[in-house]
């Protein structure tokens, strides 16, 4: 009489049966539930931090551009030149920004307390996580600054 273990393939069958009867591994099961959530939250956190930093940097660029344009030219007589100076400032800063977001810029002369001021409005855009779906279409952020001539 031959024992069961000597039959070809019996080891595999015994292994499968033992696997199906196993009741351990609850930690692995919990990890399977929690793992994707933790991963997605980590990715989302990185995304939110990147957006926050981009927002800060875009605001700094807007501040600098408004100041550069307003200080270089008299806004009463040289509004066009001031706008051009501000636009050049923004373009130069964006070139130096690795992985810069897509942006739209608006340069306009506004009235601030009876004095003309150069307003720089930058609207940035970055794709969001989960294939640009949370939120759909990506993140939007703005940099808005105005400055008067000295």
């Amino acid at each position, binding site marked *: 009489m031959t024992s069961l273990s000597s039959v070809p393939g019996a080891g595999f069958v015994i292994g499968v049966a033992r696997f199906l009867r196993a009741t351990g591994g609850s930690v692995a099961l*919990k990890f399977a*539930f*929690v793992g*994707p*959530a933790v991963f*997605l*939250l980590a990715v*989302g956190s990185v995304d*939110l931090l990147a*957006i926050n930093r981009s927002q800060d940097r875009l605001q700094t660029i807007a501040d600098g551009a408004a100041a550069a344009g307003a200080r270089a030219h008299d806004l009463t007589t040289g509004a066009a030149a001031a706008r051009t100076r501000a636009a050049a400032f923004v373009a130069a800063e964006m070139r130096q920004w690795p992985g810069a977001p897509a942006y739209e810029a608006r340069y306009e002369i506004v009235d601030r307390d009876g004095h003309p001021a150069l307003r720089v409005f930058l609207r940035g855009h970055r794709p969001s996580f*989960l*294939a*640009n*779906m*949370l*939120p*759909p*279409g*990506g*993140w*939007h*952020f703005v940099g808005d600054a105005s400055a008067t001539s000295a």
Partner: protein
Amino acid sequence: MFVLRAAGSTLLIYALFNAAFGLNRQELPWLISAVLLTIGGFALLVAQPWSRIVVLASAAAAAAVGAISQVRTAQDVHVSLESATVAWTLWSALWLATAYIGTKYLSDKGVILDEL
């Protein structure tokens, strides 16, 4: 108590994300879903007899309410509605599962049943 605290804190993190969506897009339903998840998270953390129903109801309501903003924003930016729906389903399934697992460790009297 560890599982309850972990699940409750995770719900609060999800609330933070939904609030970020709502503030970025100026969409009220996302902000409402953030408030609902905050309520659910705190209900789980305090572990009271009413916690189970509050957590499950607020998590389900947050998923439903948030979907309104998801669909509306997808239409606004001309993104595929199907993809946006799938993304929201995956996203909300994560906090629904978190809420479910959290409530599994609550008894009807609000006492913690088992520990991890």
